[in-house]
C-alpha cells in the first residue's frame, strides 16, 4: 500500500471514530430534573403592585428591514418586516422583562421559600407575519407554552436554554399547536426560527408569577405582591452578548404599591419614588450560551 495512503486511511478512520464517540456523550442541557415549585409555604397573592416605566435614553437604533426573498410568503404576510430588538417610541422602551428576582415578604419569608401553584392555562407564543408574538413573554416553570403558526408558511421553533433541555421542532402552516413546558427557572431563554433567521423571541421562566413585560408605552405592572422588600430586575436583550439586566430594591407597603422606573440606552439609570429604598442600578450581563 502506498505510504501516504496509509496516513490518510488512519486519519480518516481515527477521525470518524473520535467524532462518533464524541457524539455519544449526554449533552449537558438535557437535564430535565424539574425545579421544586410547589414545596414550601403556599404563597397567597396580595393586593400590592410594583409599577413603573422603562425609558430609553438617547436615540434608539432604527429597525432594520428584513429581506424576505428566500420565503416570499413572509413578504406577503408582512410587507414591512423589520427587526424588533429595540422597540422604543417617544423615549419609552417596550419588551423589557421585569421580575421579582429576590426579596422577602413582611414576615421575613424569602420569596424563594414560597410554593407557587402552576397555572393550568397555557401561555401562547404565535408566529404571525414571520415574527414571534409576543417578542418577550414570561411563564412559570412547568406551565404550558402553546406555540401556534398563523402564517402561510412553515416555521421552525428552536429554544436554546441553558438550564432546560434544548429542542427543535418544525411547524408547518396549518399544523396544530405545539405544547411544551420548561421545568426549570431560566431568565431568559432565546427562541429562534432556523427557517427564518431574523425571528427571535425570549421566554422568561420563573418559579413564581411575579413578572411583567413592558408595553409600547414602556409601562409595566407586577401584581399580586404581599407587603415586603423585593429586588426587582429589568432585562433587555441588547447591550451585551446575553442582554442587559438592571436591578433595584423596592418596598411594597401594607397598603398601596411600589414604583420602580428603569432606563436603558445612553447614560441609563434606574430610580424609585415614594419613600422606597433605592439601590444603585447594576448592569449584570446574563451568563448564557448565546
Amino acid at each position, binding site marked *: *500500500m*502506498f*505510504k*501516504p*495512503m496509509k*496516513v*490518510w*486511511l488512519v*486519519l*480518516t*478512520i481515527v*477521525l*470518524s471514530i*473520535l*467524532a*462518533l464517540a*464524541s*457524539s455519544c456523550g449526554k*449533552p449537558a442541557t438535557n437535564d430535565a430534573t424539574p425545579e421544586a415549585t410547589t414545596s414550601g409555604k403556599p404563597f397567597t397573592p396580595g393586593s400590592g403592585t410594583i409599577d413603573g416605566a422603562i425609558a430609553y435614553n438617547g436615540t434608539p437604533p432604527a429597525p*432594520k*428591514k*428584513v*429581506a424576505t426573498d*428566500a*420565503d*416570499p*410568503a413572509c413578504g406577503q404576510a408582512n410587507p414591512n418586516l*423589520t*427587526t424588533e430588538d429595540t422597540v422604543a417610541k417617544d423615549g419609552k422602551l417596550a419588551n423589557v422583562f421585569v421580575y421579582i428576582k429576590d426579596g422577602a415578604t413582611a414576615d421575613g419569608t424569602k420569596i424563594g421559600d414560597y410554593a407557587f401553584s402552576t397555572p393550568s392555562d397555557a401561555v401562547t407564543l404565535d408566529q404571525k407575519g414571520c415574527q414571534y408574538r409576543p417578542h418577550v413573554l414570561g411563564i412559570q416553570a412547568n406551565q404550558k407554552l402553546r406555540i401556534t403558526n398563523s402564517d402561510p*408558511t*412553515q416555521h*421552525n421553533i*428552536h429554544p436554546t436554554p441553558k438550564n432546560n433541555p*434544548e*429542542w*427543535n*421542532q*418544525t411547524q*408547518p402552516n396549518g399544523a396544530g399547536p405545539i405544547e411544551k413546558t420548561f421545568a426549570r427557572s431560566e431568565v431568559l431563554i432565546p427562541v429562534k426560527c*432556523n*427557517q*427564518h*433567521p*431574523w425571528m427571535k423571541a425570549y421566554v422568561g421562566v420563573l418559579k413564581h408569577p411575579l413578572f411583567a413585560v413592558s408595553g409600547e408605552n414602556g409601562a409595566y405592572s407586577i401584581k399580586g405582591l404581599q407587603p415586603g422588600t423585593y429586588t426587582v430586575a429589568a432585562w433587555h436583550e441588547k447591550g451585551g*452578548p446575553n442582554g442587559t439586566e438592571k436591578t433595584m430594591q423596592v418596598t411594597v407597603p401594607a397598603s398601596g404599591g411600589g414604583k420602580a422606573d428603569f432606563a436603558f440606552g445612553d447614560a441609563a439609570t434606574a430610580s424609585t419614588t415614594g419613600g422606597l429604598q433605592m439601590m444603585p442600578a447594576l448592569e449584570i450581563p446574563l451568563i448564557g450560551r*448565546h
Partner: protein
Amino acid sequence: MNKGLHRFALLVASATFFLIIAGALVTSHDAGLATEDWPLSNGQFFPAMVGNLFWEHGHRMVATSVGLLTIGLVIFLFWKEERRWVRRLGVVALIAVIAQGLLGGLTVKLLLPLWVSTAHATLAQLFFCTTVSLAVFTSRSWREFRTTIEEKGTLPLTYLCVAALVTILLQLVLGATLRHSATWDKHLPTELLLAHVGGAVAVALVLASAAFTILRRHPGETFLTRPATIALGLLVVQLLLGVAAYITRLKSPDDPQPLNPMVGITVAHVACGALVFATTIVMTLRAFRALRSETHAWAANTPSVSRI
C-alpha cells in the same frame, strides 16, 4: 491507465468540492437545523425549498449525489483498476462518505454539538482530499512518471510537504471549530479567533517553505513545480479571504439576518481552504512519487513499476 476511470475520479472530486461549498452555505446561513428530521426533511424527500430549508435540504441532495458517485467510483475501480491499493483507497473513500453522512445526521439529531459539527466539517475536507488523491493516482502523469529526480539539500522535501499537510489540517480543524462556535448573530470567541490567526501564520510559513524549496531545488520539474506554484497562489488568496471574512463577520451581529458579503466571503474562505489542502496533497504525493523513482531506479525497467 484508464482514461474513463481518471475522468470519473475527477468528476467525483469536483462534485465533492461543490458539496463543501454547499455545506459552507448551510453554516453561514445558520440553516443546519432548518428541519428537525434526517435523512428526510420534514418527512419528505422533496420538501418545499423555501427559507433556510433550501440550503439544508439542498446540501443533503448534493451529498446524496456525491455518495452515489462514490459508489460508482468504487465499482469502476474494482472493474478497471489493477492496483489493489488504489481499489482499497476507493473503499476508504466510500467508508468516509458514509461516515460523513452519519455525522451529518448526528449533527441534526443532537442539535449541533460543537465537536460533532467540527468533525463533520473536518471529515469533509479529508474525504475531499481522498477523492483528489484518487484522481492523482489514476492520472496519466502519475502512471507514466519515469524521471529520476535527485533530492538536493539536507532537509528532505517530503518532510516539508508532510509538515505543510499536517499544519493545514490542524488549521482546518481550528477553522471549523471557530465557524461552529458562534452563529452569525454572535461574535466569534476571541481565543479561538487568535488561535486561527496563529494557525494561518504557521500555514503560511510551512507551506511557503515547502513550495519555495521545490521551486528552488527543482525549477524545471513541472511535475513538482506546478502544484507548488498553484499552492502558493491559493495561499495568498486564502490569506486575503481570511482577512475579509474576519471584517465581514465582525459586523454580522448587527445585521437582521445572514447577508452578503459575509455569507459569500466566509463560504469562499472555506472553499479556498479546501483547495489549498487539495493542492498540497497533490504536491506531497508527487514529491513522494518523484523520490521513489530515484531510490527505486531499478524499477523503471521492470514490469512491477505498474504497481505504482
